[in-house]
């Protein structure tokens, strides 16, 4: 790998496993705790585990909002449908495309094409920013058609879901910038791109779900 695996001492704290067994490592007695192989496998794996667990928590947060959406719509008799902002179609396409560029960027990275990786990684970031800008335009369109946050539960949920998703996606954009352009402290670049990609695709999939919910359930 051309990219150096920058580590600092904290990473070593975390590398609990691997090279530390006192009495000659090889006596693997059924433990599934460590994968005997390379010392760096253990600390890096924990970041992937971490983001997976984190996505579980985020999913529960959104599922709570979604169930509130369904219950509120079913229980009240004041639900008023709104015109879905047209720009959302474009935004969805942009976000889907960003997942595509991210897959491509990681493929180039695995081939060792640093320049191509950075190029497509930047493209992913820009598409993410474009999506957020598009979401703001969607809000403007909602306002233009007279639907504010408190106008109707339908619009309340529209703003809450898009805002919550947007905030989480913004976190993803920070992650992309961090991975692409800042000095990594504990993660290797391989892990960092994997973690960022997992999260990005998750945000993408979550948006498609929310968009369908808004489209069909509004």
């Amino acid at each position: 790998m051309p990219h150096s695996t920058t580590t600092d001492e904290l990473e070593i704290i975390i590398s609990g496993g691997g090279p530390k067994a006192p009495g000659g490592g090889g006596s693997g007695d059924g433990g599934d705790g460590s994968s005997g192989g390379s010392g760096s496998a253990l600390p890096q794996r924990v970041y992937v585990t971490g983001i997976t667990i984190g996505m579980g928590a985020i999913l529960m947060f959104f599922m709570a909002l979604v169930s509130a959406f369904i219950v509120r719509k079913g229980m009240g008799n004041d639900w008023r449908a709104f015109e879905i902002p047209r720009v959302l179609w474009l935004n969805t396409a942009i976000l889907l495309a960003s997942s595509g560029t991210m897959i491509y960027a990681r493929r180039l990275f695995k081939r060792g094409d640093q320049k191509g990786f950075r190029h497509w990684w930047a493209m992913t970031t820009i598409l993410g920013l474009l999506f957020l800008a598009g979401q703001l335009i969607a809000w403007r369109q909602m306002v233009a058609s007279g639907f504010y946050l408190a106008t109707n539960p339908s619009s309340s949920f529209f703003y809450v879901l898009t805002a919550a998703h947007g905030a989480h996606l913004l976190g993803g954009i920070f992650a992309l910038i961090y991975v692409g352009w800042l000095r990594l402290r504990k993660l290797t670049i391989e892990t960092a791109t994997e973690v960022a990609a997992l999260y990005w695709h998750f945000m993408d999939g979550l948006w498609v779900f929310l968009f369908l919910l808004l489209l069909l359930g509004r």
Partner: protein
Amino acid sequence: MSAHAGPVHHAEAPKGWIRHYIFSVDHKIIGTQYILLGLSAVTIGMILSLIMRTHLVWPNAHIWGFANGIVSPEDYLRVVTMHGTLMVFFVLTTVPQSGFGNYFLPIQIGAPDMAFPRINMLSFWFTFLAMIVLLSSAFVPGGASISGWTSYAPLSAVGEVAGPGLGMGQTLWVVSIALFCGASLMSALNFLGTTIDLRAKGLSLMRMPLTVWGWFITACLALLAFGVLLAACVLLLLDRLAATSFFIPANLDVSGVLLHHGGGSPLLWQHLFWFFGHPEVYIAILPGMGIISHVLSTFSRKPVFGYKAMVYSLTAIGFLSFTVWGHHMFISGMNPFSALAFSIITLVIGVPSAIKTFNWLGTLWGGRIHFTAAMLFAIGFVSLFVTGGLSGIFLAQPALDLYLHDTYYVIGHFHLIMGVAAIFAMFAATYYWFPKMFGHHMSETLGKVHFWCTFVGVYCIFMPMHYLGYAGDPRRYASIESVNYLIPLHPVHYFISIAAFFTASAQLLFYWNFFWSIKHGKPAERNPWHGTTLEWSVSTPVPHDNFAGHYPTIYRGPYEYSVPGMRDDYVPQDLAPELVAKA
């Protein structure tokens, strides 16, 4: 990674006092911070409960801090709210999991620290901030919230018009709980990541101490439950501040004011809240179950009876806890068929709970029992768990719950099984691990006196409440004077109040024992209880990276006590087979 081959480690603790003790990333310091935070919260919570008990039986008593020294009905509800919120969130959720779990989980699994030390620090400071925000709500115009720890909508959602404390005080309550959710999510992330990926070589899942299992399952629950509460808090905050109508029904008339909101659903809040709230009950008690299994085994000098059954029942309880939230809402007018379903699943939780109780008794059976203070509290936990559990079977049935729901019966039930049982687990954990944490023993004699006073005391407080409940005494009433049919119950209330003062005074023994022993207790050796798990293999005080670079390999299960054919009656998990002394 070749540069790091061999026991390279981060053995140096940070130099500065602030980095070491305040903004520390060391899980042991963070664990201690959580415990001290919980100790302050439990102290305030206990004083609040004494205020309630005083006011109920001596309504004219002057109490410092209240207008004219008199507790008004609103003040009483503020005290109820603050007591519940502090105890449930900042004591029961915080100390057994984030406190003791933070301190001992990495050590017990052979890891140098939590997986994400900075997130760990952040989650403590979020918790701290949440508590400051909550306490500050007592000092804003209108005072603290009066809506209880469950903050039922719509009164919690409509603002000041609904009553004093429902303005700024309630907003601060919601903000505090939202911060707490964030903290708990980060904490759960750390617990899960650490347990999954940082276990020592040889520490398979079925070799983990039951404490670790308790913390692990609890972290799963917290991860899935607190996100839901956070979402509910966001919606509630929008109802309060942004004029939305998630929880506020149409044409709501509050105190003669007609509110202009859409047709929101107060029941939606209850569903979201209790979807979090019921797992929360287990978030409070599962770490305790782990700790109790651990302590019972150590002081019975026997392996935990049915280790695997303990793990599976713990998991089953965790899973079922997400399916029973409706039993908190039997009186909400739900469809009786839903109530029946919730009731049946609730009763099913009795099965894994009974398995656990059976196994605790099986662990004690035929053991060479050492009645240390920790052991007494562990046995006390089992007693409270059974007592509180039995009343739960009554409450799980809608027909009975309709009558009992808003009475003292429920107070008696959940204080025994959730409140006091979890507190007993914390006491057991404190007496058990204190020598490792501070290098000194707590006084065993004081500890035993503390146990007997507390044990008798809490039964005297909460058993009569069941009787009050059957007699129809409603909970949350600020006065028992003005209701005729309650007058014959006054002697019971007097008895409870006196028992409460007695029990609270007994806690002074604990405070003295705790703080005095930190410096002056009998010095503790490395493994005073002859325990088998990793925390007893490391030196005292525990090195900054826990193992001073010599990370353990695990060769056996966690509870190898009184193994036939061995010289000692315990075999540490990390003792190499060739080093085990035969008899």
